[in-house]
C-alpha cells in the first residue's frame, strides 16, 4: 500500500480537499450534505495515507512553491502533527455524521461551508512550519469558529460569539506582534530556522511574553478562560463539540510547538508558571463545573479544567521530556474525543428534553440509553478511570510527577480526577431519576446518538492502544530523543 500511495503528497491533499469540499458546499448548497460527508471520509483516509508515509519515510517536508525555508513556506508533518491531524479527522468524522442529522434548512446551508473551511484551516495549522502561516490559519479558524458559534442568533449566542471574536482577535494580534519581532530579530519566519538562530535576547523575551499571552488567551487557560463557557455553551451542539475538542487544541498545539523549538532553552521558569496556572485551572474549572445547573455550561467548564491537565505537563517536561509530552499528546487526543462525545450527548439531551437543566433530566437512562451510555463512557475518560485513554495520560503524568518528586502536581491531578468524578456522576445520578415535571420528548435520530457513542468508545478504546499511538507520536522525535525511563 505504501508503494502505490507513497509518493502522493498527502499533507497537501489534506489541506486542499476540505477547501474544495467547502467551495462545493458554498456554490451548490443542495450538494452540501453529500460533499460534507465525502470530504470528511476522504480527509480521514488521507490522514491514514499520511500516517503510512510517515511510518515509511519519517518526517515529511513539503516546500510550497519549491522555494525552500527562508523564502517560501514549508509544510512539515511529524508524529505530533500526525496525532493532531488524526484527532481532527476522527472528531471531524463524528461531528459530520452528527450534523447530517442535526442541521436542517437555512442552518444546514450555513453550517457546511464554514465547517469544511474550519477543517481545512485546522489541517493547515497542524502542517504549517511557518509562524506567519500559523497566524493566518489561526485567524481562519477564529473567524470560522465565531461564525459557527453565532449561528443560533439568540442573545446568548451573539454575546458569546462577540466576546469570543474579540478575545480571538486580541490573541492573534499579540501573536502577530511576536511574529513580527521574531522575524525582524532573526530574519526568518520558519520555525526550524528560528529554532537554530534564536538566542536569549530582549527581542526573544518580548516575543515570548506576547506570543505566550496571546496563545494562553486563545487556549482559555485559567485566568483567561472567561470567554469559553458562554461561547461553547450557547453554540449548537456539534459546534460546541468542535470548539472544545479541536479549536482550543489548535492554539495549544502552536504553544507546544514554540516551546519545543523556538523557546526551548529559555522557558525554565515560565514552565513553572504554566504548571501553577494549569493546577489552578483544574481546581477552578472543576469547582465551577460542579456548580453549574445547566449541562452544557458544566461540560464547558470541564473543558477549562481539562486544559489545565495539558499545562501541568510543562513543569514536568524538564525531567523526562519525551514521555511527559507523549502523555500530554495522549491526554489531548482522548480529551478531544471524550469532550466531543460529551457535547454531542449534551446536545441530544437538550434536543430531547427541550432544556438542559441537570436536575430536570427525566429518566434519560431508560429513554435515551445510547446517549446516556456515551456521556458515561466519555465521563470515564475525562475522570481518567482505567479502561480509558484519559487514564493512560494521567498515569504517565502521575508517574513523571512521582519520579520527579512533584507531589503537589500529583495531588492536584488526583484531586482533579475526584472533582471530575463528582460532576460527571452528578449528571449521571440525575439521569436515572425521574424529573418532577416531565416534558414532551422530541425525537432524537439514531445517527446523532450513535456518533456520540462511537466517539466516546473511541476515547475508551484509546486506553488499549497506548504503545502503538505513543510510538506514532514519536516519529521524528518532536520532543527530543525519547530517553529510556530512569
Amino acid at each position, binding site marked *: 500500500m505504501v508503494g502505490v500511495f507513497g509518493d502522493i503528497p498527502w499533507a497537501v491533499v489534506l489541506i486542499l480537499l476540505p477547501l474544495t469540499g467547502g467551495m462545493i458546499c458554498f456554490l451548490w448548497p443542495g450538494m452540501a450534505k453529500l460533499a460534507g460527508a465525502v470530504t470528511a471520509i476522504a480527509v480521514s483516509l488521507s490522514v491514514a495515507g499520511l500516517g503510512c508515509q510517515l511510518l515509511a519515510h519519517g518526517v515529511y517536508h513539503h516546500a510550497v512553491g519549491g522555494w525552500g525555508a527562508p*523564502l517560501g513556506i514549508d509544510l512539515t508533518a511529524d508524529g505530533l502533527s500526525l496525532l493532531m491531524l488524526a484527532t481532527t479527522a476522527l472528531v471531524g468524522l463524528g461531528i459530520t455524521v452528527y450534523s447530517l442529522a442535526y442541521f436542517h434548512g437555512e442552518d444546514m446551508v450555513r453550517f457546511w461551508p464554514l465547517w469544511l473551511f474550519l477543517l481545512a484551516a485546522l489541517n493547515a495549522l497542524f502542517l504549517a512550519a511557518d509562524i*506567519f502561516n500559523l497566524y*493566518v490559519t489561526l*485567524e481562519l479558524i*477564529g*473567524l470560522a469558529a*465565531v*461564525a459557527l458559534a*453565532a449561528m443560533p*442568533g*439568540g*442573545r*446568548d449566542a*451573539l*454575546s*458569546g*460569539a*462577540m*466576546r469570543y*471574536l*474579540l478575545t480571538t*482577535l*486580541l490573541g*492573534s*494580534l499579540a501573536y*502577530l*506582534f511576536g*511574529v*513580527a*519581532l521574531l*522575524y*525582524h530579530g532573526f530574519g526568518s*519566519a520558519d520555525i526550524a530556522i528560528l529554532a537554530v538562530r534564536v538566542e536569549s535576547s530582549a527581542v526573544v523575551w518580548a516575543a515570548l511574553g506576547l506570543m505566550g499571552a496571546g496563545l494562553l488567551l486563545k487556549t482559555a487557560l485559567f485566568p483567561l478562560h*472567561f470567554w469559553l463557557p*458562554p461561547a461553547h455553551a450557547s453554540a449548537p451542539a456539534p459546534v460546541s463539540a468542535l470548539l472544545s475538542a479541536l479549536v482550543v487544541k489548535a492554539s495549544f498545539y502552536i504553544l507546544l510547538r514554540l516551546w519545543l523549538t523556538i523557546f526551548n532553552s529559555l522557558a525554565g521558569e515560565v514552565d513553572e508558571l504554566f504548571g501553577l496556572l494549569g493546577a489552578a485551572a483544574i481546581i477552578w474549572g472543576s469547582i465551577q463545573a460542579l*456548580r453549574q*445547573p*445547566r449541562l452544557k*455550561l458544566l461540560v464547558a467548564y470541564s473543558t477549562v479544567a481539562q486544559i489545565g491537565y495539558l499545562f501541568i505537563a510543562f513543569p514536568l517536561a524538564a525531567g523526562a521530556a519525551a514521555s511527559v509530552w507523549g502523555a500530554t499528546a495522549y491526554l489531548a487526543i482522548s480529551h478531544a474525543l471524550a469532550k466531543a462525545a460529551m457535547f454531542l450527548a449534551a446536545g441530544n439531551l437538550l434536543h430531547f428534553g427541550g432544556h438542559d437543566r441537570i436536575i430536570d433530566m427525566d429518566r434519560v437512562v431508560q429513554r435515551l440509553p445510547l446517549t446516556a451510555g456515551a456521556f458515561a463512557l466519555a465521563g470515564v475518560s475525562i475522570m481518567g478511570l482505567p479502561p480509558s485513554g484519559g487514564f493512560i495520560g494521567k498515569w504517565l503524568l502521575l508517574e513523571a510527577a512521582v519520579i520527579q518528586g512533584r507531589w503537589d502536581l500529583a495531588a492536584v491531578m488526583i484531586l482533579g480526577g475526584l472533582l471530575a468524578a463528582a460532576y460527571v456522576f452528578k449528571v449521571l445520578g440525575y439521569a436515572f431519576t425521574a424529573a418532577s415535571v416531565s416534558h414532551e420528548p422530541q425525537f432524537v435520530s439514531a445517527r446523532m446518538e450513535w456518533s456520540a457513542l462511537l466517539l466516546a468508545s473511541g476515547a475508551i478504546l484509546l486506553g488499549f492502544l497506548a504503545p502503538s499511538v505513543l510510538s506514532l507520536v514519536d516519529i521524528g522525535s518532536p520532543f527530543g530523543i525519547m530517553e529510556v525511563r530512569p
Partner: protein
Amino acid sequence: MNTAFFYALVGVGLFFLGLYALIVHAHLLRKILALNVMGCGVFLVLVALARRTGEAQPDAVPHAMVITGIVVAFSATALALTLMVKLTAATGRAELQSDERDPH
C-alpha cells in the same frame, strides 16, 4: 536612532494605545476600533523595521505579510461589525454586559 526605529516605536505606541482603549471603553464599536488601531500598530512595526536593509529597496516579505494582515483585519472587522449590529438589535445595548451571562 534612524527613521525605521522611530516609526517602529510609534507602532508600539499605537499598539498599547489601542490596548488601553480596549480595556477602558465598554462600547463595542470603540473596542473594534481599538483592535484596528492595535492592528495598525503591529503592521507599522512590521513595515518600519523592514526599512533597515540599508538600500533603497526595503525587505519585501514584511510588506507581503502586512497586506495579508490587512485583509485579515478587514474581514475580522466586517464580522465584528455585523455581530455588533445584530447584538445591539437583540439586546438593545451595544455593550458586553458581563453580568447578563451570569445566570445565578
